[in-house]
């Protein structure tokens, strides 16, 4: 077993280092460095983790592979919108603000599509209820994270808390794969925080960063419910992380202190869904 085969390296170390390198390079790259495009590093870290752990393929298109596909498409759309916004006239701000809800709704539809193979196994109202439930959860989580897209430190902190919460809930629900995926998103978001704090520059997450955090974490959590043993009520409890973080605004702190406070808050909030998943597992991870 080589070092790269260790789950902690695949899920934590590689995504962190890769995201750190990509974000640092992109943040220092002229005009692009002032856009949220550097947040693509979060997705790069997740993809590297997935590639090392299970490989990346798209046939047959299983739910797990659809997650990778949806995350890729969401990232491309996020980059396109963020770059277009950067080039758009200053008086068009209202147009971009209105994209939150359409993007959240599309994320909801994407979640239902991702798990269509499982929805199809249910009948009538049960199938409709499952599809609507998944869509509402993903849409809500994306909307909550997109609300903080102008604040890179807050989005980074939410990414750390949400990634850790999603990953720990997954492993408490018998899914090691989603543990690694969740932690990879958390590590990538942590890398973006480090670049902002240590580099003393603000990197707004935009749609690239907020979708790169919110959508995969929503899909990992839903996958832990449908493909593993996570109880469904952990899904709404995971929303506590982005929703609760929005209530805290430590403006008087410097970036390092602000990032520390917000990460601390998200990790405390992460204990809520983790406690529910732990209780369901009776404290017995696999």
């Amino acid at each position: 077993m080589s070092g790269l085969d260790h789950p902690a390296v695949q899920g934590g170390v590689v995504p962190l280092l890769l995201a750190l390198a990509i974000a640092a390079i992109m943040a220092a790259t002229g005009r692009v460095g002032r856009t949220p495009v550097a947040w693509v590093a979060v997705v790069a870290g997740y993809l590297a983790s997935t590639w090392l752990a299970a490989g990346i393929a798209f046939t047959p298109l299983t739910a797990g592979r659809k997650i990778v596909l949806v995350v890729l498409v969401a990232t491309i759309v996020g980059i396109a919108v963020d770059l277009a916004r950067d080039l758009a006239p200053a008086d068009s701000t209202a147009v971009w603000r209105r994209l939150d809800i359409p993007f959240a709704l599309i994320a909801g539809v994407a979640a239902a599509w991702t798990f269509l193979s499982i929805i199809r196994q249910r009948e009538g109202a049960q199938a409709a209820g499952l599809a609507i439930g998944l869509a509402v959860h993903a849409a809500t989580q994306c909307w909550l994270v997109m609300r903080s897209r102008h604040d890179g430190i807050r989005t980074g902190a939410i990414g750390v808390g949400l990634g850790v919460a999603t990953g720990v809930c997954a492993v408490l629900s018998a899914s090691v794969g989603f543990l690694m995926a969740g932690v990879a998103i958390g590590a990538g978001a942590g890398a973006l925080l480090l670049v902002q704090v240590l580099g003393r520059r603000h990197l707004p997450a935009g749609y690239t960063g907020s979708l790169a955090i919110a959508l995969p974490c929503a899909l990992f959590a839903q996958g832990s419910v449908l493909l593993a043993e996570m109880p469904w009520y952990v899904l709404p409890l995971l929303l506590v992380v982005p929703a609760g973080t929005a209530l805290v605004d430590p403006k008087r702190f410097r970036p390092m202190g602000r990032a520390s406070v917000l990460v601390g808050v998200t990790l405390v909030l992460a204990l809520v869904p983790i406690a529910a998943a732990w209780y369901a597992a009776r404290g017995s991870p696999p």
Partner: protein
Amino acid sequence: MKRILAAFACAALPGAALAAAETFTFDPLHTFTYFTVEHFGLSNQFGRFNRNTGKVTLDRAAKTGTIEVTIDAASIDTGDSGRTRSRDDVLRSGDFFNAAEFPRVTFKSTRFAFNGDAPSSIEGDLALLGTTRPVTLAVERFRCNPPQGTRKERCGGNATARIKRSDYGMKYGIPSIGDEVTLMIVFEADKD
């Protein structure tokens, strides 16, 4: 008269052909699919699927046959089902057998090879995790007991195959948990 006899003979031929092919249905209490895989290079760990269904048809005169096995993926049992979030739960999850999305593993034969009166190997297609690949089962034993009293003829045996789980997209944990998996289908089936 000759025409009538010829017509009867023609009508009887397909029936004679059908009569030569015998169908057997698996006894679920004596049919299991076992698997073994290397664990951290230390040991070979065993597990089995508890729910297996299927049929065998045999034409011993023509030395042909078919076999269809359907395995309930959620019935995996590695001896660790007594606690919540057990190893069996992990194996049922999307990391391994993805039983929610792919509830069934199937094997359908495409060709039987005989050694004397008994099948010696069975070529077929194994469908696992949405991927279907050819697999050859080596039949290590195959015997039939004649009907006794009210009991019908009963056949049974063991068949083994080796697969690479990565060929089916099950890559999690390689190489700590081995890529090569040995499957053993242990079956007994009653004549219909």
